[in-house]
């Protein structure tokens, strides 16, 4: 982040960030799942998969939002007829 990246690298940067975010959150989810299955659920397998999926999903959502900031859940931007004409 020291030097301002050139404009053509903005998309690639987003990819990088998304990947990093995915790894972290997935790891956190996995860890929480493991602990939860060990502590509470007598070493069942599904809590681990669930929490990992939560983490991956969170990172995906963030990444998608970074690519398309206007996308907000429950809303939809309708393109203007002038823009359509163009």
């Amino acid at each position, binding site marked *: 982040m020291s030097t301002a990246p050139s*404009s*053509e690298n*903005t998309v690639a940067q987003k990819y990088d960030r998304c990947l990093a975010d995915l790894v972290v959150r997935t790891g956190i989810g996995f860890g929480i799942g493991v602990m939860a299955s060990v502590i509470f659920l007598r070493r069942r397998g599904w809590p681990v998969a669930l929490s990992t999926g939560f983490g991956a999903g969170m990172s995906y959502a963030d990444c*998608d939002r970074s*690519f*398309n900031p206007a996308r907000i859940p429950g809303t939809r*931007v309708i*393109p203007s007829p002038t823009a359509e004409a163009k």
Partner: protein
Amino acid sequence: MLPASRRAIARPVFRHGRSPGARMIIRRRFATEEAIETVKAGETPPSTAAASPRPTKKKQRGFVSRIALYSSLFGVVFYGGSTAIALSSERYHDFFVESVPLGEAIMDYAETQGWDDTTLFGLPRLAIDGTKGAYRFVEGAVSRTLGSQGYPTPSPASKESSTETGRPIVKRDTKPAPSPVWTSANRGAAGDSTPVPKRKTCSPVPSEPRSSTSEVKVYTTELPLGFEPPPGFSRPSKPKPVEVPLSASKPVTPRSPRPPPAPPLPLVAPAVAELSASEPVIAHIASSIDNLAGYLRDSPAGATAAAKDILDAAQADLEEKKKLEEQLDAQAQEYSKKLLQLEVDSQDKIDSQEEGYKAMIEEERQRILQTYKARLVAELETQSQIINERLKEEVIAQGIEMQRRWIREIKVRVEQERGGRLAKLDDLATGLKRLERVALDNTSYLDENLRLHTLCAVDSPIRKPFREELRVLRHVAAARDEPIIIAALDSIERTDVPDIGVEPLTDLVSWFTTSVAPRVESVALLPDQNAGLLAHLASSVLSTLRFKRHGLVEGTDVSSVLARAEHFLLEKDLDSAARELNQLRGVPKVLLVDWLSAARKRLEVEQALAIIHSQATLSSLLVV
């Protein structure tokens, strides 16, 4: 005080002296030195004297007396010589005063007498004077005694002795202090000086010293006031208070009251007192006359009458002489007056004659001067005429010659000038043309130089600031004073482009082809809006599967646009490439922002330089 040696010498004089004068000298001298002894010396010579006992006890005391004689002689010689040397030599003076007994006393006396002022050369004169004085005195004494007949005629021996003894005395004295003989002679003659009255008062009666002093000794020296003479002495019998009309009349005072006082002789000296100042001879004579009168008075009365007559006659003669002198004075005055008159007259005459001569000489001079002047003027006139004529001729000849020369010269000059001017015109024309050409070349060179400079900065392979070049260019433009160039330069200068520089074209091209174009290609399939993560992923995956388009292709899609831009860039047409890329929208446009801004800056600068270049070209064209 006198030294003892002097006394020793003086005594023999007294002993042999028979004449009253000589006796008086000795007595007077002794009266000042040893008062008491003097009186005694009158009849009995002192026993201490070395010479006195010599004749009586020659046998017994021969040796002693000889020693005494020699010692006294030696003493005399030593002291006399020492005094003389001490007066001339300072060192000997010191020695003499300090180490010789009685030396200090001698030197004091010598100084008081003023001997140190005289020189040894004056001694002979003094000696001669002393001798003369002595001789005169003896002579006077002889004549006196002969005239008065009261005194026995002095034997020639005594006279001789007195004259002989006078000489040694003078020689012993050696100094200007008047020798006794001389003093007495003076006193008798001129009758001067202070010591006289004292000595007179104490001098004993000359006629009968022996009878009176046999019983009672007379104390002749002056006693202090209120003192009595010592026992055995008596005061002299009333020393007559000297009636002092004049110093010269003193010796006349009678001593013995016994003879009845003779009719007083008239004194001559007071009569001629007023003459004494102007005529010392008369005063001298008068005093000697008075002297004689005094002696006459002392002598038996027989002579007084004759003396009186003589004195009367002398007085009369003196009166007459005075009258005659007055007459002579009057005559002298008269004659001097006449002489003066004559002198003045002759002076006047000489003056008038001189005036006459002077006037004559002046007149003559003037006349001669005038004639010479006239002659000189005439001569000058003729000379100047001749010279003028000659000058005129020469001037005319020279003028003709000069005119001829001038004409020739002017002709030559005109010819030269004509040719020179034409040639000069041609020269000027060619020079002007050359100058024009040079100026044109210069402007073109200058413009080219400027252009090259700025373009060098713009076209250099690396990005660098060109503010300095811009400034130089601006100066040149300002010098040219062209508003278009200045406006273009202002548009560049207002931004920060000159400081950071512009991207070179090659950099822009490589930047586009290597990084910008692939990225834009990967997002080419995205929709304009609402492109999420999946869309991006799909676009990037699918775009790689597409065929790449090249060259000047139709179409408005992203890949076609990119192909055209790349084509333009390869043809170094940055402007067209930028225009193509500027048409894109959406995500591709976002990716292209940086590259487009850089290209636009470069394009701006290039446009300004193109304007300047065209303007410079225009102005260079305008010059022609």
